[in-house]
C-alpha cells in the first residue's frame, strides 16, 4: 500500500488518470483522490518555485490562497455551466450576464440607503437569496426566446443577452431610478458599493462584521499559525467558497445520477425522441436553465460580491470564455472535471503567469523597453534582457495568447478534457442485472 502522497504525485503524468478511474474503489473516492492529488502537487510546485527564488513564506501562502480563491470561483461557475452544457447540451455563453444579475441584485438589496447609488440596506442573506432568485428569473425570461432557436443561434443569443445586461448596467439611464417610492440604482460605470460577502470570514474569526473585535476560538487557532492575519481572513473566506463548491458538486452529482439527469442527457442527445417518449422537455429545459442561472448568480455573488464594489466591467464576455476554458480543460460533462478544470485554469493559466512575473521582477533587474522594436534593437546589439523585459511587461497579452493556444490544443488533441471521456451512467441505482440466485454471484445490494 503506497502512501497518499505517493499516489497523488503519481497522478501527475498523463495516463495515470485512467489508472485511478479504473481501479476498484468507488468513483467518488477516486475523484476526491484525484482532485486532492492535483491540488497538492500544484501547491508543492508553486511553493518550491517560490522558495527557490527567495519569496517569503507569507507571500507564498498568500499566492496559494489567491490561487485557491480563483480555483473555487471558477469551479463554481464551471459546475453551473456543466449543468447547462455538459449535461443538457445548452451552449450558454452568457454566463457573465447571469453572474452580473446575481451580484447586482445582491448589491442593490444590501447597499446602504444613503449611498450613491442608494440601496435597500437589507441583510446580507436576503441579498444572497434575492440575487440567486433574480438570476434564475432572468434565466426564465431568457429561456423563453433562447430555447426556441437553433442550437448554434442559442449561443449567440445568450452572448447577446449577457451584453444587453452588461450594457444596461453600464448605462447612465439606470444609474439611479425610482421603484415604489425607493430610489435605487446600478451606479452606471462607477458601479455600486455594497457590503462584501467577505464579512462571513469576519464572523467566523471575530464573531462580528468588524475586525476590531476579539477573535473567536477558530480565530485564535488560525492566528497562531504564524500566517499573516490578512491571509487568514481571506483564507477563511476561500474555505467558505470551497464549502460551496462541495455543495454545488454534491447537488449536481445527485442530479446527474438521477432520472432527472437522465432526461437532461436525453435532451442533449435527441430532444424530439425524448418528447416522443413522454418527456416534457421544454419544462425540463426551463427548469434546468433556471437552476443553472441561479447557481451562476450565486457564484457571481460569492465572487464579485466579495469586493465592496460591483462594477459592470467585471462581467465582460471574456469572463464567460475563461469559464469555458476551465470547463473544457477539465472535461465537460463531468462534475469532477469541472472542479479540476477550475483549479488548473486558476493555477496555471490565470494566476501562474502573475506569480512568474512577480518572481522575475523581484529577482532580476529587467526593464521593459517601450516597444518590441526597441527590444529587438537591443537584441541586435547583443542585449537579450530587453526582450525578456518586454515579454514580462507584455505578460498579460502573452497570457491571453497562451489561453487561446491551450484552448485550440485541447480541441485538437484532447477534446474531452484532462479527465478524458467520462460517460457517467445517469441512474439512481446500479443498473447491472441483479444476479439470479442460481448465478452464484455476489449479491450487490
Amino acid at each position, binding site marked *: 500500500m503506497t502512501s497518499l502522497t505517493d499516489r497523488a504525485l503519481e497522478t501527475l503524468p498523463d495516463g495515470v488518470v485512467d489508472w485511478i478511474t479504473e481501479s476498484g474503489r468507488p468513483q467518488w473516492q477516486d475523484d476526491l483522490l484525484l482532485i486532492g492529488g492535483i491540488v497538492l502537487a500544484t501547491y508543492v510546485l508553486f511553493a518550491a518555485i517560490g522558495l527557490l527564488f527567495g519569496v517569503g513564506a507569507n507571500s507564498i501562502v498568500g499566492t496559494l490562497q489567491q490561487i485557491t480563491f480563483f480555483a473555487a470561483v471558477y469551479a463554481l461557475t464551471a459546475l453551473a455551466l456543466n449543468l447547462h452544457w455538459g449535461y443538457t447540451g445548452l451552449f450558454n455563453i452568457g454566463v457573465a450576464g447571469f453572474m452580473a444579475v446575481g451580484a447586482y441584485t445582491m448589491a442593490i438589496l444590501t447597499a446602504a440607503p444613503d449611498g450613491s447609488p442608494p440601496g435597500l440596506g437589507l441583510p446580507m442573506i436576503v441579498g444572497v437569496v434575492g440575487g440567486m432568485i433574480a438570476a434564475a428569473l432572468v434565466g426564465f425570461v431568457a429561456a423563453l426566446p433562447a430555447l426556441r432557436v437553433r442550437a448554434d443561434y442559442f449561443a449567440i443569443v445568450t452572448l447577446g443577452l449577457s451584453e444587453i445586461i452588461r450594457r444596461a448596467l453600464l448605462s447612465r439611464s439606470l444609474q439611479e431610478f425610482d421603484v415604489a417610492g425607493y430610489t435605487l440604482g446600478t451606479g452606471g460605470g462607477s458601479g455600486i458599493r455594497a457590503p462584501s460577502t467577505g464579512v462571513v470570514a469576519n464572523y467566523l474569526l471575530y464573531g462580528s462584521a468588524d475586525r476590531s473585535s476579539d477573535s473567536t476560538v477558530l480565530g485564535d487557532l488560525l492566528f497562531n499559525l504564524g500566517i499573516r492575519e490578512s491571509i487568514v481572513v481571506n483564507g477563511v473566506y476561500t474555505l467558505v467558497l470551497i464549502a460551496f463548491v462541495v455543495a454545488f458538486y454534491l*447537488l449536481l452529482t*445527485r*442530479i446527474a445520477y*438521477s*432520472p*432527472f*439527469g*437522465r*432526461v437532461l*442527457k*436525453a435532451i*442533449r*442527445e*435527441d430532444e*424530439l*425522441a*425524448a*418528447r*416522443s*417518449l*413522454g*418527456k*416534457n*422537455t*421544454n419544462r*425540463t429545459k426551463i*427548469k*434546468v436553465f433556471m*437552476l443553472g442561472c441561479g447557481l451562476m448568480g450565486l457564484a457571481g455573488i460569492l465572487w464579485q460580491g466579495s469586493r465592496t464594489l460591483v462594477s459592470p466591467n467585471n462581467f465582460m464576455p471574456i469572463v464567460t470564455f475563461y469559464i469555458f476554458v476551465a470547463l473544457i480543460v477539465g472535461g465537460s460533462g463531468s462534475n469532477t472535471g469541472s472542479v479540476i478544470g477550475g483549479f488548473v485554469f486558476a493555477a496555471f493559466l490565470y494566476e501562474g503567469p502573475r506569480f512568474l512575473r512577480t518572481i522575475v521582477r523581484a529577482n532580476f533587474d529587467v526593464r521593459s523597453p517601450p516597444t518590441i522594436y526597441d527590444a529587438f534593437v537591443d537584441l541586435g546589439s547583443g542585449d537579450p534582457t530587453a526582450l525578456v523585459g518586454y515579454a514580462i511587461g507584455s505578460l498579460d497579452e502573452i497570457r491571453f495568447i497562451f489561453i487561446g493556444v491551450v484552448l485550440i490544443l485541447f480541441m485538437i488533441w484532447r477534446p474531452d478534457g484532462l479527465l478524458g471521456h467520462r*460517460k457517467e*451512467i*445517469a*441512474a*439512481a*441505482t446500479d*443498473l*447491472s*442485472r*441483479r444476479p439470479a440466485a442460481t448465478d452464484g454471484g455476489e449479491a450487490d445490494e
Partner: protein
Amino acid sequence: MSDVETEPQSADSARPTDESTPRSTGASILELRNLEKRFGGITAVDGASFEVERGTITGLIGPNGAGKSTTFNCITGVHEPNAGSVVFDGEEITGLEPHQIATRGLVRTFQIAREFPEMTVLENMMLAPKAQLGESLWRSVTPIVRSDVVEQEGEMRERAWEMLDFFEIDHLAHEYAGNLSGGQRKLLELARALLTEPEMLLLDEPMAGVNPSLEKKLLEHIHELQEQGYTFLLVEHDMDVIMNHCEHVIVMHQGSVLAEGVAEEIQSNEAVIEAYLGGDV
C-alpha cells in the same frame, strides 16, 4: 422545429364524423377526422379520416409523398394540424404536445431510428417508463424522498432487463446505443417504446433497411405483442409485410384516404393498383 403556422380552425374539431367513417366507434382506439396539414403551398395531408381498431395491426400504405409520415407527425404532436382532429381513446388530443400524447399511451417510432447515442442501451431503456418519481428535480436531490426514487429505479431496471431479454439484445445492455447496427437500433427503439407501456404504437417503416431475416424476427415480436393486447399502426412499403400481417389496411393518396379494408380487398382495388401497387403485384 415548429414552423410558421396559422391558427387551427378549432371549430372543425367539433364537427361530427362524416360519412367516410367506416365502422362503429366502440372498438376504435384512434380516430382521425378530416385531418389537414399544409407546408407553405404544399398540402401534405388533405382531409384524411380513418379509425384504428383496438388490438389490431393496421397497415398504412401509400405512394411516396402521400402524407403518411406527416399524418404520424400530426397524430403525435410533432406537427400541429391546420384543421381536423385526432381522438385517442375517446379523448381529443389534437394540438397537444408530443410528450402529452405519449403520456396518454400513444407512442411512436421514427422512420430513421432515433436512439440516444451517448447513453447505454440500458439507459435508453430506463428513460422510457412514465411517471418516474425521480424526474422531478426536487425529488431527485432531496435526501429522504430520494429513497423512493432509488426503489422505483430498481423496479424499472427489472422491467428494462426483461424487455431486453424479450428482444434478445440483453447482451448489448451496457453498449452505447450509438454503436449498434441499424437493425439493433430498430429493436432498441421498439423495446424502448414498449417500456412506456403504451396502449398503441405507431411504427414508421419499421422494416425499411432491415435485413430480411431480422425482419422476420421483428414481425414475430409484433404478433406476440398484439396478443398481449397492444394496438399497432404501421407504415410500410413492403407489401409482403402488409398483406401477410395486417388485418386492416388503409391506403393514402395525395393526403387523403383512398381506400381501406382487409388486405385482399385492397390488393384487388383498382384505384389502389393504379396509384400505388403498379401493374404486376
